[in-house]
């Protein structure tokens, strides 16, 4: 079967090519290219200020790209916005409702703008909004406002949902409810693009993860690919005094070529590879031999946090 370029454009849910966005002199998105396949949960992961929301809002048609191309469901979000909007659901990071409107009243209103909306009581029930259904929006808790915003995004039975930090500030129970709903949406054929700075959210939920930082794509892959789960572990060593300059090389020699030693900053090292208790013992002995006083020494599975740290030299969530 042959596929023309236009086929590949329309077969992916979102296509971003060379996107550049600026606010005045500040570059928010810097040559970003990525693709979101249909029927997936795709996470755009990055620290605050990485350009996630700007990217999402460009896909939603709120912002005009300074450079590059964005296609959503094969449509231009600016020039074909009216055609696109009924087909997508949008969850803003905050706000989006009148302060005096009651929660269910707001949801009903958004539903009434769509041709075949979901049953509002079902959605209210699924997201646990029943108890606050008659509460004015301004008196809802942050988590309730988030869940209402999610309900508003999906009530129109969209093909594609953009959710911006869906679980920020939610309690664990509400987070689980939200995750379950997103997973069920995908199972029923909805494509979901979410931004998050929680790596556990991306790891547990996403089929595909795009890690971005300072407006650039750093790495893409499935959670498994990104963490090479099961085969690799990491050891993080934090010490009380700055390392002597030769320390990384010296530790590298002690551990052997299988294992990679990477300085994060002057008092912290990341050790990646098939590390186990023996490796830990070697590191511990090396510390003793070199008069280095560990503040913490931890062995764990390689996480997205480590991936981000390795690539950028900075912590993902702080």
């Amino acid at each position, binding site marked *: 079967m042959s596929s023309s370029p236009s086929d590949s454009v329309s077969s992916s849910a979102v296509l971003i090519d060379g996107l550049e966005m600026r606010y005045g002199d500040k570059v928010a998105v810097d040559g970003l290219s990525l693709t979101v396949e249909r029927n997936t949960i795709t996470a755009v992961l990055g620290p605050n200020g990485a350009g996630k929301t700007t990217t999402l809002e460009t896909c*939603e*048609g*709120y912002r005009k790209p300074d450079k590059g191309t964005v296609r959503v469901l094969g449509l231009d979000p600016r020039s074909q916005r*009216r055609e696109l*909007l*009924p*087909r*997508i659901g*949008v969850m*803003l990071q*905050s*706000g*989006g*409702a*009148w*302060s*005096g*409107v009651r929660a269910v*009243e707001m949801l009903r*209103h*958004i539903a*009434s*703008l*769509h*041709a*075949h909306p*979901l049953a509002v009581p*079902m959605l209210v029930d699924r997201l646990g909004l029943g108890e606050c259904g008659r509460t004015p929006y301004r008196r809802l808790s942050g988590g309730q406002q988030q869940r209402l915003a999610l309900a*508003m995004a*999906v009530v*129109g*039975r*969209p*093909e594609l949902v953009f959710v911006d930090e869906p679980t920020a500030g939610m309690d664990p129970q509400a987070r689980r409810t939200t995750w379950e709903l997103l997973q*069920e*949406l995908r*199972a*029923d*054929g*909805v494509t979901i693009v979410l931004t998050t700075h929680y790596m556990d959210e991306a790891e547990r939920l996403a089929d595909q993860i795009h890690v971005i930082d300072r407006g650039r794509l750093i790495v893409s892959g499935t959670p498994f690919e990104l963490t090479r789960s099961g085969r690799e572990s990491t050891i993080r060593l934090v010490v009380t005094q700055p390392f002597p300059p030769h320390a990384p090389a010296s530790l590298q020699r002690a551990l052997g070529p299988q294992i990679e030693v990477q300085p994060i900053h002057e008092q912290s090292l990341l050790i990646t590879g098939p590390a186990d208790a023996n490796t830990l013992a070697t590191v511990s002995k090396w510390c003793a031999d070199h008069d280095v006083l560990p503040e913490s020494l931890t062995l764990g599975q390689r996480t997205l946090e480590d991936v981000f740290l390795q690539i950028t030299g900075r912590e993902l969530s702080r």
Partner: protein
Amino acid sequence: MTATGTFTPRPGAAPLVRQVLAQARMETRLLLRNGEQLLLAVVIPVIVLVGGILAADKVGLEFATTAVDTLTPGVIALAILSTSFTSLAITTGFERRYGVLKRLGASPLPRTGLLTGKVGALLFVELLQVIVIALVALGFGWSPVLTPGSVFGTLGYAVLGTAAFAALGLLIAGALRAEATLAAANLIYLLLLAGGAIVFPASSYGVMGGLLAVLPSGALGTGMRTALIDGAFPLTPALILLGWTAVGAALTARTFRWE
């Protein structure tokens, strides 16, 4: 994939008319729920009406007709000003602040539909205001001219006044911060109430009268009074209101920020 899932996509916009009606109903409910807006919309005009009638009696103000017949059309004009300008500006300002406009911007409702819905809500609230004011005025012996001309004039000026003040209200709401909009919209309301030739005829302001007559408030007041006292539809105030509408709408279209 089988179409059996709860969330299986079935996107689509509701018919535009249904969307606009839903928006108008929603905005009406929110306007009527807001206590401060109701004060502005009904209580103040009624106080002005009753106070004006009683004061005219006491100090022996001389109008060409009875006090209630002279004042009621102006008070109706004031009610239209309060809703289509002040209420609209304040609610729209806070809709910007709270991301309501942004969220509705991602819904199937187009901007023209949003605007039509808003105007629908304004006209409905104005109808309720006019009913309350008319009932109070009738209690004081109001005897408006009831002819096809007066009905046409009243409705026509209600629409023209709403258009002009809505354009100006949106101009403020789209450019200033919500708090500044709140302050400005209330201040302008009070200034026009006192000195805008809306409740009292422009002629009662002496030499300033000619100037005040070209304000949207003066034009709306004159139009309402001519319709309800003389049963006519004066052309000049209508053109003045159309002019304000055009200027307001053009500036709003250029300056309105949705976020």
